């Protein structure tokens, strides 16, 4: 039988060939022409797992551990892998409510169904231990270890700073940081972030479609190891720091103690303070908000280098030094005091006094007249010129500028320029008497406790200082920032310092009229100067600066006790106790210590504050 449709054989053959060619063309396009699929396949299968290095530890100057790490665990979830589970048990194990559970799951799903996201941050080791046994019951959940800061003692919060998770803005600014990374905030943690953080490592794994790890990629040859952060030895004396905070309990104010020969900060107290452990882990946000909400005592506010006070009479030694250097007085120059000088009042003491006596008695008249001589020095063409010369000396002591410590938010204080007075009074419209209150540390001048301690250290050193700093050395090779090894020389002869120091010695150890005898110690020659910083808002602040021992100073200290009145009353005893604690390791004057510990200047303040 003849096949009339034989031509259709070719149609069918054509159809088959055409289909095969179509398949081959499409295959050629996706396999040979386009190379994006390779990348997509890699993205599917390669999982980059960050290896978080342990953050560097922080020690005190004697090798006592201050800050270390404890393990914490982030509970991660991969939404697509979750399945049937006992949600009620899960929630009770973790101590969360079902609403929280639902909300977290939703957030995780919105982020990505296949990629892991943090379900619950920083669960404690105890919760983790309990939870780990049951984790097989909760498909899609796993635990990623992290480290949290832990503090050996609940002290030095302001010095140490804290660690928190990086925010969006910072990630944009610094590409090193990735979401979920931690970063140091304030204090040592911020200043030495780069040393403490170490370097992240990354391990590349192959994962299957369920994100289960199936092995390492390229036998781990492309992995990088995490480098642990450098440990830091700080200049802090932990015992002294703790003792200082103890003394300052129930008071507001600040203590800064410096080792004069190196500029290392031995203790830095800002009271009220807080337990640094409050700003760790999941409780951080809540506690931070609570601390921030305390507007009366501002525990987060670091008074030691952010509070500006007038220095008060503690400023007299520097004026004496400048006057000596400018040769407008000699140590034996005497001035009369008739309970005051012009409109400036003074208390009763013997008269006339020389420089030593004036420092010992804290005579206002003496320093008003000295200051007038400085500003009216015929060597200079005008008061304004002499004033700038005087201001130059102050800058050499570190006043009116940032000292350059590690604290990024350190304040410069204020020593107004002559231009400031020109603006205020008109050029030539002001005289020595106009600014006479700066003779005894009042008026426009503002200093921070850190600057005062540094100034004391410079006196102790007889004319030089090293920039105050917290850190003694970094890492195993004991690096130190070179800026802390520069000696800042002050252009005042050391002989002049000796004269002023005699006065400061007498203020503590002298006979009748000595203002700071309460600070005297057995067997240690303490040199000090009291001060009263005027406080327009209430009771004056009690100020005391001191160093000891006189001939080989090991500690220079500045103490501010707010709303405590005259410098000798509270600041001097606190400074004296600190010095004894540091130099002897024990306190001989127990009743004084007891009195200082029991002293409560806060409750009355609370009452008066709430009245407003």
């Amino acid at each position, binding site marked *: 039988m003849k096949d009339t449709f034989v031509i259709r054989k070719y149609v069918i053959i054509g159809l088959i060939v055409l289909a095969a060619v179509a398949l081959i063309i499409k295959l050629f396009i996706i*396999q040979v022409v386009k190379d994006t699929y390779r990348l997509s396949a890699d993205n599917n299968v390669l999982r980059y797992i960050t290896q978080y290095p342990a953050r560097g530890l922080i020690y005190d100057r004697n090798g006592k551990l201050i800050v270390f790490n404890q393990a914490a665990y982030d509970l991660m979830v991969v939404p697509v892998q979750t399945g049937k589970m006992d949600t009620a048990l899960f929630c009770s194990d973790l101590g969360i409510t079902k609403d929280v559970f639902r909300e977290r799951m939703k957030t995780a799903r919105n982020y990505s169904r296949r990629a892991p996201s943090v379900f619950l941050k920083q669960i404690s080791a105890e919760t983790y231990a309990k939870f780990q046994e049951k984790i097989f019951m909760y498909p899609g959940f796993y635990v990623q270890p992290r480290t949290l800061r832990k503090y050996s003692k609940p002290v030095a919060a302001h010095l140490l700073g804290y660690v928190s998770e990086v925010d969006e803005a910072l990630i944009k600014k610094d590409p090193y940081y990735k979401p979920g990374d931690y970063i140091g905030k304030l204090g040592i943690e911020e200043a030495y972030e780069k040393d403490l953080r170490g370097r992240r490592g990354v391990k590349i794994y192959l*994962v299957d479609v369920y994100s289960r790890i199936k092995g390492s990629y390229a036998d781990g040859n492309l992995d990088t190891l995490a480098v642990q952060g450098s440990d830091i030895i700080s200049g802090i004396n932990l015992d002294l720091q703790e003792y200082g905070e103890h003394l300052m309990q129930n008071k507001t104010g600040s203590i800064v103690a410096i080792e004069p020969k190196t500029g290392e900060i031995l203790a830095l107290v800002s009271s009220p303070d807080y337990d640094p452990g409050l700003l760790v882990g999941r409780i951080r946000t809540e506690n931070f908000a609570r601390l921030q909400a305390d507007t009366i005592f501002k525990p987060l506010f670091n008074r030691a280098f952010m509070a500006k006070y007038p220095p008060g009479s503690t400023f007299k030694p520097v004026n004496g030094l400048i006057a000596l250097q400018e040769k407008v007085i000699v140590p034996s120059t005497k001035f009369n005091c008739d309970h005051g000088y012009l409109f400036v009042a003074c208390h009763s003491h013997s008269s006339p006094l020389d420089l030593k006596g004036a420092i010992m008695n804290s005579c206002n008249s003496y320093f008003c007249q000295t200051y007038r001589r400085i500003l009216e020095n015929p060597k200079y063409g005008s008061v304004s010129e002499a004033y700038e010369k005087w201001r130059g000396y102050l800058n050499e002591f570190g006043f009116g500028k940032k000292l350059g410590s590690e604290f990024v938010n350190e304040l410069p204080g204020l020593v107004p320029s002559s231009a400031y007075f020109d603006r205020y009074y008109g050029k030539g419209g002001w005289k020595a008497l106009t600014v006479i209150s700066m003779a005894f540390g009042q008026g426009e001048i503002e200093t921070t406790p850190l600057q005062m301690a540094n100034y004391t250290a410079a006196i102790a050193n007889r004319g030089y200082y090293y920039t105050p700093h917290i850190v003694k050395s970094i890492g195993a090779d004991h690096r130190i920032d070179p800026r802390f090894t520069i000696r800042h020389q002050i252009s005042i002869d050391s002989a002049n310092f000796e004269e002023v120091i005699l006065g400061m010695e007498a203020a503590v150890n002298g006979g009748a009229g000595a203002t700071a005898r309460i600070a005297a110690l057995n067997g240690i020659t303490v040199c000090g100067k009291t001060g009263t910083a005027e406080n327009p808002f209430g009771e004056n602040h009690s100020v005391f600066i001191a160093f000891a021992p006189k001939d080989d100073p090991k500690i220079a200290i500045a103490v501010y006790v707010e709303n405590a009145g005259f410098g000798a009353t509270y600041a001097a005893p606190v400074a004296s106790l600190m010095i004894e604690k540091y130099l002897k390791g024990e306190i001989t004057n127990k009743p004084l210590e007891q009195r200082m510990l029991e002293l409560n200047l806060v409750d009355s303040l609370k009452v008066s504050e709430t009245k407003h």
Partner: protein
Amino acid sequence: MRRSINIWNGIDKITILLFLVMVIIGWFNIYAAVYNEDHKGILDLSQRYGKQFVWILATFVLAVFVVIIDNRFYLFFAWIIYAILIFLLILLLLFGKEINGAKSWFEFGPLSLQPSEFAKFGTALALASYLNNRRQELTKLKVILPAVAIILLPAILTELQPDLGSTIVFFSFFLVLFREGMSPFVFISGLLMVLLFFLTLLINNLYLEAGLIVIAFFLAWFETRKFKLYLIGFGISILIGAGLYLLDHYLIKSLGNELVLLITLIMSGLAFAYYIYVKKAIAIFFIYLFLLGSILYINSVDYAFNHILEPHQRDRVEIMLGFKTDTHGTGYNVNQSIISIGSGGFKGKGYLQGTQTKFKFVPAQSTDFIFCTVGEEWGFLGSFVVIGLYLFLLLRLVFLAERQRSAFSKIYGYGVISILFTHFFINIGMAIGLLPVIGIPLPFFSYGGSSLWGFTILLFIFLRLDASRTEYLV
């Protein structure tokens, strides 16, 4: 007159070789697709590759069995085999095991059977048997309709499971009818229907229908060339349409624009009927019928798409048409499949080195998506070879079919070609994103006893018939 022959001498060794090569390559690819570190042995019976080895051994036995049976058996028992398989498909709807929402499997203990895989050779036999004596008569409707019924019966039964993939495969038997003389008009109509189907989903139905009416009127004008007459006809339609529209708009208010259009068309048809009858204007009549049919078709497609198709099937069609881009839901499979194949590059990642394959990014990678393993691990070269093997096999089968002296053998041969071709093209086409996802296996490659046995029987019956081609002199 009957001549005795030696089967082994008569059987086509090239096809057998191709078959063996494909089965073995398939087996190795299944090993790669479900590779399990803990069970490295390719004969490990707890794994799919171990099981596939058993199915392969069984299929060799089956092939031998199919070949040693007398060739006349298939001709004489074609209808009985078909009836048994249809019966099984019906039983399946009653007693089948529901997996993934479809009753496609009988379960006998550890063994599952998919009757639709066997219904394919049954249908091919029945079709060949039916057309055996009606070779050149496929132009007659009374010959065509039973042939279509033979095809549609198993197609409908599989769609009731529902198993859209297998249903589409049954439709490939129309290729056999085409080869045997059915008018290409049917296929052109078919193509137009597919085109209209997509247009229906793409374009607002009303615009589409309006467009068709405009085309119809143009055709009518082209046919009559009588401008005045044409205008009258056109005017009548416009009047009816406008009248109905206003009626619906102000009084009935429930017909809707589509129904108005349809009724207008029917009423216009009645008006034209007189002219057509008197002038014997057959062409106009066909244009009219075609238009009416198209519009009914559009409405039914619209209805079917929105009311009959399962949501996942609707998704697949929509993703294929580019209406939707969804890389996590239905589109995930295709996306991962293309990534697998695309990432293979020119030379492939190497055997057992496919990360997509090894780490299970592609679902059903040992069955419907087995080609991903080929594409990823063997690259373009491997894919080319596999497609080449199929092309070679199909063309060889065309050659074999064309050399048959018996109509039964030849028609059956084209049945085999149609089935294998459809599976090959759709399966690979979907894996590389050329066609929508239609879950059908790749013959001789995909994991699974039923499909392997079904294709083996299908192929070897034809080889058996071919081996005896010289027994008859036509």
